[in-house]
């Protein structure tokens, strides 16, 4: 393998990894806040991609310009998902874990069916974006601009999230609620409101990922499924609830996937990622940065 080919694998893995991290972080955030794994996460991503597509078709503006609108829409969707479904799942007195899994799983199927109903089953594609199809040739190593953009957005989102969590009242409320759900009520924080906002934020982050992805990926009611499993593994690898862990794990997953495809037959490239997850949790059952 030449140095150039190696650099290409490294760069591609890194770019894809940052995008995986962006897809996964919302999931991790929601889990950290309230111990719920959202099995409809992939469908949120799918809806964000359709939202981008729909807005571009309607307004003829560039997907980059429309990104804030998509993020806002997904924020609302996330909040509604919490208030409409998850809130009730959390009320279950027994067997809460299973109720949450299957309530969000049911939501996932509903959203898939709804997308099929609304948008049909054809493969869609965001027409004519400014970034679409452009590639940076860095001395024989090719870096697609949409993915570079995605990676930058991902890093910016993680930076922004860090500031939000550490510098704002909302962030502190989130942090306090995840530390002790009971105690926050005593200091006058409305738990339900924080959870709804947390879900909104988690969905907004995956909305950002969807808007980025829509520029260089096909759009289809089932598209979320391709990314969902990677997102779950990324979150668990980083440690459930750890935002920084999601970033590191995303990058690691991207790189391991890229290198596995070089070593094993490409059809088995996910095996590398899965094996890595197992190897990590067998040694560290709480993932890389998780708390027990």
């Amino acid at each position: 393998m030449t140095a150039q080919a190696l650099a290409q694998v490294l760069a591609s893995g890194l770019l894809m990894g940052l995008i995986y991290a962006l897809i996964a972080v919302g999931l991790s955030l929601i889990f950290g806040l309230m111990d719920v794994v959202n099995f409809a996460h992939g469908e949120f991503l799918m809806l964000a991609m359709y939202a981008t597509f729909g807005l571009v078709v309607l307004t003829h503006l560039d997907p980059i310009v429309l990104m804030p609108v998509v993020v806002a829409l997904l924020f609302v969707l996330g909040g509604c998902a919490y208030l409409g479904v998850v809130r009730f799942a959390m009320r279950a007195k027994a067997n809460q874990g299973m109720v949450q899994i299957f309530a969000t799983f049911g939501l996932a199927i509903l959203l898939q069916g709804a997308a099929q109903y609304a948008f049909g089953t054809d493969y869609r594609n965001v027409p004519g974006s400014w970034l679409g199809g452009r590639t940076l040739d860095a001395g024989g190593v090719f870096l697609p601009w949409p993915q570079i953009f995605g990676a930058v957005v991902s890093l910016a989102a993680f930076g922004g999230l860090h500031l939000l969590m550490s510098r704002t009242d909302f962030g502190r409320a989130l942090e306090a609620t995840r530390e002790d759900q009971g105690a926050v009520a005593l200091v006058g924080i409305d738990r339900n409101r924080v959870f709804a906002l947390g879900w909104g934020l988690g969905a907004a982050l995956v909305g950002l990922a969807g808007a980025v992805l829509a520029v260089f990926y096909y759009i289809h009611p089932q598209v979320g499924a391709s990314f969902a499993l990677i997102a779950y593994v990324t979150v668990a690898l980083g440690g459930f609830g750890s935002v920084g862990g999601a970033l590191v794990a995303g990058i690691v997953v991207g790189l391991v996937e890229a290198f596995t495809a070089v070593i094993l037959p490409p059809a088995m490239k996910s095996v590398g990622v899965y094996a890595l997850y197992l190897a990590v949790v067998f040694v560290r059952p709480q993932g890389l940065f998780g708390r027990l």
Partner: protein
Amino acid sequence: MIRRREILTGGAGALALAGLGLGPARAAPSEVVVGVLYAMSGANAQVGVDARHAIETALDIVNNDHDLDLPNAKGTGLKGLGGAKIRLVFADHQSDPQKGRAEAERLITQDKVSAIVGCYQSAVSSTVSATCERYGVPFVCADSSSPSLHRKGLKFFFRPAAHDEMFSAAMFDFMDAMRNKGEKIDSVALFFEDTIFGVDSSTVQRKLAGERGYKVVSDIKYKTNSPSLTAEVQQIKTANADVLMPSSYTTDAILLTRTMAELGYKPKSIIAQASGFSEKATFDTVGDKLQGLISRASFSLDLAAKRPMIKTVNDMYKARAGRDLNDNTSRQFMALIVLADALDRAGSVEGPKIREALAATNIPGERTIMPWSKVAFGPDGQNVNADPVLLQYVGTSFVTVFPEAVAVSPAKWPMNA
């Protein structure tokens, strides 16, 4: 209404008889029920939606009076059955062999279908053909191209279109012809998905490449619906074969094309095993990057210059589906035309009689919309006269480039100089 009467009058006895394809004798049935089985939900649902439009177009032609030189186009209904019309019952198999089998049984026993048309995914066609065999109901396999299907010794299996070996042979015939013209073609890269379709297609291609002296410099099986194909494309790019031969469904065809462009790779030439590379969605999305792509096909729209009725049929389909007929939809259309021809000659809605009629099918190529020489089935149910063609994507449409007898223009070769 037939169904209700049978159940009411006959009870269990009638059910058993109907199951054998020997329902109560009817002098002139007012309709013939045909089952159509496709994935209508899930990742490949678009194929089912398009198939529905294609088969409904054929239904329109058979049931209503059309001035076209297709079997049963003129006049209404099936004359051999006293003008009876065909009624379609659609079912969804969700790409699952078990569900395909269950739906086939439901169509046969509840809806009393006289024959079934389907099923795109070869794995599903496999269980559906076995079920039809058990109930003695003909299965007209429209568009599954796995060669294993007609090699099971099934008596009720019929495939009017070509299978992968015929398709791949045409690709290599073309490459041989280009070689004879002095083009340098030494190496091929196989790129195929990990499904029956991909594996079957690549197995034949690997064998043919060996036999005809082409070096396989890259042989990549990838996981279908992967989030990224960067690593795979990197390997194809390094190998840089003279011809890239992909066997991919739509999702991966789009992703493959995009990723090649992103990694700055322009393959010298592409000869595709249709599928994703004959779907409108692919060309809507990445058509600009596929100029000069060659794909095998059962169908070619430019044949309409010789046979104007093809344009009429295409317009009828386009009015329904909003797109042109393609490799898949043309085969789905023909499946019902071929079946209707057999129903007409059988003069019966009973499985064994329809089977006999299908086996005796002899439709000249000019009376189809395909470049086929004729439709006539071998003892294994395969139409060996379903000559495939190769099409090249130029501008925004496909042009027939091979075989020379039907070619409209010579192939641009290589695709990217």
